[in-house]
């Protein structure tokens, strides 16, 4: 911009009236350093502005001068005593503007929007995180119950394999025990290993006993009943249960006895019996 356009741009008038922004002030100061005619025009304009200000002079209250000099004396005494604390430096620049530049206002507005957006996003993510957490917990629960089921099945399978193993043993002798006259539908099977003399019993069909009762297996050896132990029935019981061993027997039978078993069989409670 040339000197003439500076002079006619209104920037000098803005400067002397205090209206110029800090950027405009810097521009004009640079222009004054460059063009003497701009500096001269500024001087003249500033002088007239000051004349306008002087025209509006008002004599201050008469007591003010005394107050001022009394403050000045106090301060100078303090300064001489070395107790004076230097007060704020005066700002040399013309009045600061309150309004920030529009660019900064946009930045501020954008920041607020970003903050609001971020808060919303955080809320969303937090909600989703909570959902995910709950789902994860539910999955963990169902996973552990699945694991427990799997364990149950594995145990059952192992038992079944073990049972199969017992049954498949070539030295195993199968003794079928059909129901007696009072219990015609009852059925149980004894597996007797001829080599190891181990005895196993399998319940095919026996009624569920009262809680204080248990079935007891007997071996008839030389015409006399020998206790082979009590066994469980029902779904929780092993399919094939190991009993006491016996070297030889003519017959096996099952009676219903009090819980824990009896030393002698209760003959009218004999459910099944089978000869070898």
């Amino acid at each position, binding site marked *: 911009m040339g000197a003439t356009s500076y002079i006619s*741009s*209104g*920037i000098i*008038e*803005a400067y*002397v*009236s*205090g*209206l110029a*922004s800090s950027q405009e002030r810097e521009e004009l100061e640079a222009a004054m350093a460059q063009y003497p005619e701009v500096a001269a025009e500024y001087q003249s*304009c*500033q002088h*007239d*502005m*000051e*004349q*306008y*200000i*002087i*025209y*509006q*002079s*008002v*004599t*201050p*209250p008469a007591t*003010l*001068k005394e*107050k*001022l*000099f009394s*403050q*000045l004396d106090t*301060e*100078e005494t303090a300064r001489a005593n070395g107790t004076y604390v*230097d*007060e704020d*430096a*005066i*700002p*040399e620049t*013309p*009045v600061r*503007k*309150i*309004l920030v530049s529009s660019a900064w206002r946009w930045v501020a507005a954008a920041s607020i929007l970003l903050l609001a957006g971020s808060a919303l996003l955080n809320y969303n993510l937090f909600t989703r995180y909570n959902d995910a957490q709950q789902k994860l917990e539910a999955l963990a629960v169902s996973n552990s119950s699945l694991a427990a089921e799997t364990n149950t099945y594995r145990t059952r399978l192992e038992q079944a394999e073990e049972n199969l193993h017992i049954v498949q043993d070539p030295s195993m002798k199968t003794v079928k025990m059909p129901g007696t006259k009072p219990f015609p539908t009852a059925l149980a099977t004894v597996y007797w290993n001829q080599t190891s003399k181990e005895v196993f019993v399998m319940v095919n069909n026996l009624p569920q006993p009262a809680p204080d009762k248990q079935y007891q297996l007997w071996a008839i050896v030389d015409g006399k009943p020998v206790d082979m132990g009590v066994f469980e029935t029902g779904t929780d019981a092993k399919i094939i249960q190991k009993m006491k061993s016996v070297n030889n027997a003519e017959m096996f039978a099952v009676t219903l006895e009090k819980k824990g078993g009896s030393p002698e069989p209760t003959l009218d409670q004999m459910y099944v019996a089978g000869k070898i």
Partner: protein
Amino acid sequence: MESAFTYTESELIQGLKAKDQKVFSYLYDRYSPALYGVALKVLNDESNASDCLQEVFMKIWRNIDRYDESKGRLFTWMLNITRNTAIDTLRSKAHKMDQKIQDIGDDVHLYTGNLAVHPSVDHLGLSKVLEKLTKEQRIIIDLAYYKGCTQEEISKVLEIPLGTVKTRMRNAIIQLRNLLKLV
């Protein structure tokens, strides 16, 4: 304490820098009406303006070493201190935009002027100047100078487009300068 003689500007500055209280007293007598006029127009309250003026002269006394003759006249420097101090006071009193506008409307000093009893002031000259300035021209100058309004604020107060604020200010000051030539 009234001084009977005058100093040149450079004598004044030298005396102040030497912390000569006689020179300071002269400075007060000579310039306090102009500076008080500024404080009063900014603050529109005699008590606040008195406090402000006292603070201004203390700043002048303390900071005279910072005054740089090459950057402008002593009076310009003192006016800047006065205007800045008064406008800072105005703002610290949490004056809002509305208040500023109302102040302009209520300001008795702004239009009628509780005019100076200072010998250097030509009452007739002032009233001539002010009569020939339109109300809008005075307001735009006074809002900027005495109330420290920005271009944006003036645009809102006077309900004129932001882009025309500087042009109107230029026209107002050109008119003011032309009138001053006639005084």
